């Protein structure tokens, strides 16, 4: 199967293409240097052509997403569309069903999305859902930050066993990378408590969040995993937390990256860049966070942009979610997972005229506009925490147009003038910067830049074409057009197949699931397993033999090999 995209205004920052008319040749799902005359031709007619969108942090599948659906039929009843000859029925806005999840990403021109958190014990569930999300390639990050084995091996200062555990945990969960959420806090939530900063000692385990973060970074690099540690900082959602965030980011200096990428990815920074001491003096410290990033290239972050209206917060930060529910008088689900983690789900409605919400909204944009290198600040809404991913086009339009931002600022609570820098920021991102924040950046951060996030030869033929002619448009003024175009791709091509045309789904192939198979010396593995066996014998409620995700749950795997630890001589 050959395809030729002609007359596209290609934006491909990785390959230095900035809107030039470049033909793209596709064969067998990959971008190639040329195709035969038999190739099907798509005439882009001067429209914007980019690599398929890549989302490095979104909650699309698994236990807590489904809890969101179960507790929110009022959300499921919005966004309902019946089945068609090609598509299954769709439901939901903040917590769409699996089909809507795939279709809507594809309709926006996105082709690769990573679920941001799965507990190993519930990974089978995550994969059951991933298997039913159509079109997109996907993967899931595995939670390690409060796992008992993690803490035990850190207390024992045995990085070999910790590395072996991470490698085994990724295999057990068919996970792609190391997620660390409110390290130590998940365990303390087991008794309804939480850590207050990175130096607290976790009772019963005698380790600190700081040690957990550093140790996981170390073994992540020992294993040469494609992605870095993916950190959800302690104290998320608390006024004044930017100090914890900065202290956590400084830990990155203790570990050297094993690859050409960051050593720490700090996620949904909107929720971690808060000043003040309470909701009264709450203010943005996005400038401090951005400033730190501007001076440290070993860290990346993502926005977690907030969208006004309905959202469903869901995170493995259990204590935060209880606090949220109490604050909002909202319904609350909690899901402690034995020996591993705790998650919470709470609906929220972000209101323009609530000062805290308006300040939060502005923080997201400040992070993106004050961080100089777009490779360091990915576009996310931490779907559906900040808001549903279907609003990315709104975020893009706001990033590209100061005019739109100023119009929007007029409609939100006046607190943003005193508490945020956003009103005075006139930076407008260009198409290349948007392409980095939504394509090249996430691909690089995930360690997938060889095949994702660009349009060079050898890349996956994941391509989006938008109804924008970059030469003819002034995004600053014509922001409505930008928003409309990015919300609904003219074409989305996934693995060389046209899956969306004029915003409509035309085919629903099943994408691949990325997971990492990291090897460690057998000796380390065997030592580690002795502890694991004991944990199952005494503390887990299931048998070790029934723990690991079986092949049946990953029918289209894309396995990335990792692990290159030299055998150490004691």
């Amino acid at each position, binding site marked *: 199967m050959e395809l030729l995209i002609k007359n596209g205004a290609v934006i491909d920052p990785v390959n230095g293409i900035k809107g030039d008319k470049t033909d793209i040749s596709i064969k067998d799902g990959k971008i190639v240097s040329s195709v035969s005359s038999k190739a099907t031709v798509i005439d882009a007619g001067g429209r914007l052509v980019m690599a398929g969108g890549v989302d490095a942090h979104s909650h699309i599948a698994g236990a807590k997403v489904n809890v969101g659906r179960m*507790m*929110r*039929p*009022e*959300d499921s*009843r919005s966004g309902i569309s019946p089945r068609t000859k090609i598509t299954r029925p769709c439901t939901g806005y903040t917590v769409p069903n699996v089909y809507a999840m795939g279709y809507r990403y594809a309709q926006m021109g996105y082709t690769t999305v990573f679920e941001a958190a799965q507990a190993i014990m519930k990974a089978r569930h995550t994969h059951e859902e991933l298997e039913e999300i159509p079109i997109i390639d996907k993967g899931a990050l595995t939670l390690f930050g409060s796992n008992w084995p993690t803490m035990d091996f850190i207390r024992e200062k045995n990085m070999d066993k910790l590395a072996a555990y991470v490698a085994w945990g990724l295999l057990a969960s068919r996970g792609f990378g190391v997620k660390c959420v409110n390290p130590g806090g998940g365990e303390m939530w087991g008794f309804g408590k939480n850590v207050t900063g990175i130096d607290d000692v976790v009772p019963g385990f005698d380790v600190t969040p700081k040690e957990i973060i550093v140790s996981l970074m170390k073994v992540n690099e020992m294993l040469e995993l494609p992605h870095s540690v993916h950190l959800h900082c302690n104290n998320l959602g608390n006024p004044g937390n930017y100090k914890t965030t900065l202290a956590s980011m400084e830990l990155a200096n203790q570990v050297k990256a094993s690859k050409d990428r960051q050593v720490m990815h700090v996620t949904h920074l909107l929720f971690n860049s808060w000043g003040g001491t309470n909701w009264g003096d709450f203010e943005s410290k996005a400038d401090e966070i951005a400033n730190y990033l501007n001076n440290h290239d070993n860290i990346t972050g993502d926005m977690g942009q907030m969208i006004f209206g309905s959202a469903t917060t869901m995170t493995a930060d259990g204590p935060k979610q209880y606090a949220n529910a109490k604050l909002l*008088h909202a319904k609350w689900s909690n899901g402690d997972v034995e020996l591993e983690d705790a998650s919470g789900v709470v609906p929220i409605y972000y209101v323009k005229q609530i000062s805290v919400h308006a300040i939060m909204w502005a923080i997201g944009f400040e992070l993106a506009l004050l961080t100089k290198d777009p490779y360091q600040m990915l576009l996310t809404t931490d779907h559906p925490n900040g808001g549903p991913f279907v609003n990315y086009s709104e975020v893009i339009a706001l990033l590209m147009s100061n005019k739109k931002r100023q119009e929007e600022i007029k409609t939100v609570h006046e607190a943003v003038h005193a508490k945020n820098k956003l009103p005075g920021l006139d930076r407008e991102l260009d198409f290349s910067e948007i392409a980095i924040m939504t394509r090249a950046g996430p691909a690089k951060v995930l360690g997938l830049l060889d095949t994702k996030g660009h349009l060079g030869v050898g890349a996956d033929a994941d391509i989006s074409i938008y109804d924008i002619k970059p030469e003819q448009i002034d995004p600053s003024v014509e922001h409505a057009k930008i928003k409309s175009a990015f919300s609904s791709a003219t074409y989305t091509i996934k693995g060389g197949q046209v899956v969306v045309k004029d915003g409509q789904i035309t085919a629903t192939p099943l994408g691949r699931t990325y997971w990492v198979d990291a090897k460690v010396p057998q000796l380390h593995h065997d030592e580690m397993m002795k502890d694991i066996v004991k944990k199952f014998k005494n503390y887990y409620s299931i048998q070790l033999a029934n723990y690991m995700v079986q092949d049946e749950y990953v029918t289209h795997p894309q396995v990335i090999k990792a692990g290159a630890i030299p055998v150490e001589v004691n």
Partner: protein
Amino acid sequence: MQTVTMKPRKEIKISVEGENISADIFSGKTEKEIQALVAWMGNQKTTIGELFMVKVEGSGPAADTKIILEGDFSRVKRIGEGMTAGLILINGNVDMHLGAKMSGGKISVKGNVDSWAGREMKGGELIIEGNAAYYLGAGYRGESCGMRGGKITVMGNALDFVGEHMCGGEIMVKGNTGILPGMSNNGGKIVIGGNTSRPGSEMSKGTIIVNGKVDEMMPVFKLEGDEVVDGVTYKKYTGDVIGNGKGLLYVK
């Protein structure tokens, strides 16, 4: 002035979805146009014309449109859904979701209504001369607000969960209600002429007046003493105390 008269062509066993039967949709339409409107019956997509005889006299805006439903509509759901103006007169019984989400106009029913009449109603008036079933003026699953405005009057009885999650508006049931009326009341007024049980659980705002007997009181109300309302002396309670609710419950 436009008058539309409808009558089922034959007995309806499988419920018909009647969300297109509303003054807003019928106004200004001819007989043919109304007959062509979609009406689902089970999994069959059919039309109003196939199921009902339709007679149209005159033409006018929604506010000047009157719909008269003759015969048995006890298996027609969602009549008057989202209506903003006009009048629907129903001479018999109707199925669930009568006047759901309506914001204006008036619906008057001679017979009984099934569950969820006035669900999420925002305004307008619903008058039911017979009985109402469950969830009168209530919300949809998971929503924090049921009825937000308007008025519902039931001459007969209503079953459980009257005005569940009500955030505004008024419900008057002249007869008895089932259990848990005004559950999670957040600002509506409910007047019960007859008996009820377990009223006002989790109410945070609003008023519930019970003129008959309360079979079982919720153990979450503080007795404030006697108070005269419209010339009648009631025991006045406030609650639900669990959430420091400011709801008022009057019991004779």
